């Protein structure tokens, strides 16, 4: 006869085996370049409204982050702003160096820098606050977007 603690322990192990572990594996599994390209192409060609136009890359999860961070450095990337925001939605810290690079690059268009700020904010709120102050001082037009971030509206 199992006591309650033993029962809970076994239930925890079962949960790990059947739910948590597979989910983690799926989200961190490696992705072949071909598969990443396929997903990126789906993203580029997707004909859906703006609020859901990043669905393919967001649904791909962490596995696509290495490819996506490489792709967003390309300034002529189609739907680049949405890809930057998608990195924030995925929430993988591996994207932070590239996002910070875009944010700090004054040769970047302001709206891509603001997209990078939004992505950083969603990955690391404290880091986002730091860069928000920086961007706000540099570009007063960005104050609106910083307010929306602080209010949780975007």
């Amino acid at each position, binding site marked *: 006869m199992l006591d309650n603690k033993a029962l809970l322990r076994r239930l925890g192990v079962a949960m790990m085996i059947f739910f948590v572990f597979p989910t983690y594996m799926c989200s961190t599994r490696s992705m072949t370049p071909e598969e990443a390209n396929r997903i990126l192409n789906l993203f580029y060609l997707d004909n859906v409204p703006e*609020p859901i136009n990043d669905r393919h890359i967001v649904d791909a999860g962490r596995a696509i982050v290495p490819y996506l961070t490489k792709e967003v450095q390309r300034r002529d990337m189609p739907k680049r*702003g949405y890809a930057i925001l998608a990195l924030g939605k995925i929430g993988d810290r591996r994207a932070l160096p590239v996002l910070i690079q875009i944010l700090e690059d004054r040769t970047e268009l*302001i*709206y891509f820098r603001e997209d990078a700020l939004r992505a950083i904010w969603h990955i690391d709120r404290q880091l986002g606050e730091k860069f928000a102050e920086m961007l706000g001082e540099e570009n007063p037009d960005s104050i*609106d977007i910083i307010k929306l971030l602080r209010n949780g509206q975007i």
Partner: protein
Amino acid sequence: MAPGQNAYTRSYSYDRIGNITYKSDVGSYAYTYNNQPHAVRTAGAVSLQYDLAGNMTQKVSNGVTLGITWNADNKPTLITRNGSDYIQYTYDGNGTRVRKVNLATGFVTRYYGEVYEERGTTGVIHLFAKTTRIASVRTDGTIQYYHGNHLGSASVITDATGTVKETIEYLPFGSYRDRQDLDGSFPNVNYTFTDQEDDDETGLYNYRARLYDPLLGRFISADSIVSEPGNLQAFNRYSYCVNNPLVYTDPSGHSWLSDFFDDFGGDFLGGFVGAAVAVLCPPAWGPVIAGMLGGIAAGATSAAVNGAGLEGILQAAALGGAMGAIGGGIYLNYGTDSIPYMIGGGAALATARAGLEGLSHFAAGFAGGVTGSVMANDWLANTSNNEAGSAACVEDDPLKWNGRELSATDAKGNEIGSWGGVSGRTGSTTSQAHQRIRGYGPIPEGGQYSVNPQSIQRWSDLSWYQKALAAVGRGEWRGGVQTWGNTRVPINIQGGTVLSRGDFFIHGGAYPGVGTGGCIKLQNPGSFFRYLSGQNGSIPLTVKY
């Protein structure tokens, strides 16, 4: 009469094609003409003959033989009695009886339309309230006041003092069950069953187009109109009111259905006239003005056709105009979604017409105005859209979005449709700063946009799998019809400055006032997509806040 007093019983039988086969006060009916299955050959002791046109030429009853001669218009011109000329009828060019001569007595009746006739040397003026005969004013100084039953049959006749002079009771098919002449010096009325003239010399009623025999319950000639070809009973061209004489009347002698249109035709005509007027209004006048003018025309037409005087016509026009304007306003604000409700309202009022005569023109005006305003908008949307389609070829701007309203204009710049909506999520503004916020701000105004009807996406085109995906927040319609509506169309970006944004759509959906990023969410997308579907190619869209 007290309930139950003088109760009587009559029995009737019919066959499947509307022939009376038995009538208890007549006997059995026989229809033995092979090529005239509805022409009764014998009815009890009555025997009948017909010509090839279906007109009764001879009736033998109780030893009396009536011979009937017909003209080319199938109107009886001469009736003989036992071989002697008896009654002679004369008609005008429209087939309306203008003279009746009793050749046996020399008594002449002349008819001058509905309201005046001369009976011998006495002139009779008939007074009507709409179609109801109220009184007959005779030049001999007497006035006959009619008090009718539910069929409009004269039941009680009074004089100017209200004294009852005559009472009449009828059997179902119009024979007199009891007719009491309470004052021998007071003239008897000639218009009795369902207010038709009783040709008492022959025992027939003059139903204008035809003569009717109440004893047989049949017309003596075939109806020239088959008003309801889908109804087998309608092909029986001798039957009276589809053998339902306690419910229907037949004022014209054609068919109960054509008489229905006689009664309501004015309202139908009013509706059509109102719609036509509204449709012809210039688009720039908008649905309210178009509806008002359509309502005025509908109400006035209906009132005039239904016999109203000047005051009634003006009253109906005013009511119709007001209702039409309201209908137009409803349409303007709620678009095509309001049509079912307006039709329902019009139908309810039209139904009320039957019991409330005063609402007759009101209903007609309302229905006409609403129909007019709706038709005007839809018609103009469709027709003008073709113009707009052409305009697109010459680089005009048929579609404009100003942050609150999407409007379509024709080549001359006249607005042909507008749809309220929202772009940008709740809390966003049309400022430049917000326009560049991806997924939050409204569609940027610096872009060169177009919309192509070929690109319309419909929820109904999705497979069950795609719909199931949408239900669990996946797939290309994630959010479902609640978010996007049943139809949506992408906004193509031709150039200009869109701040690296894109994937804007025009769509509908629930959650009024809640935007979806840079998409344009319309309150009444159905009307817009009908407009868009009528276009031939891409339509330029200008965004200017």
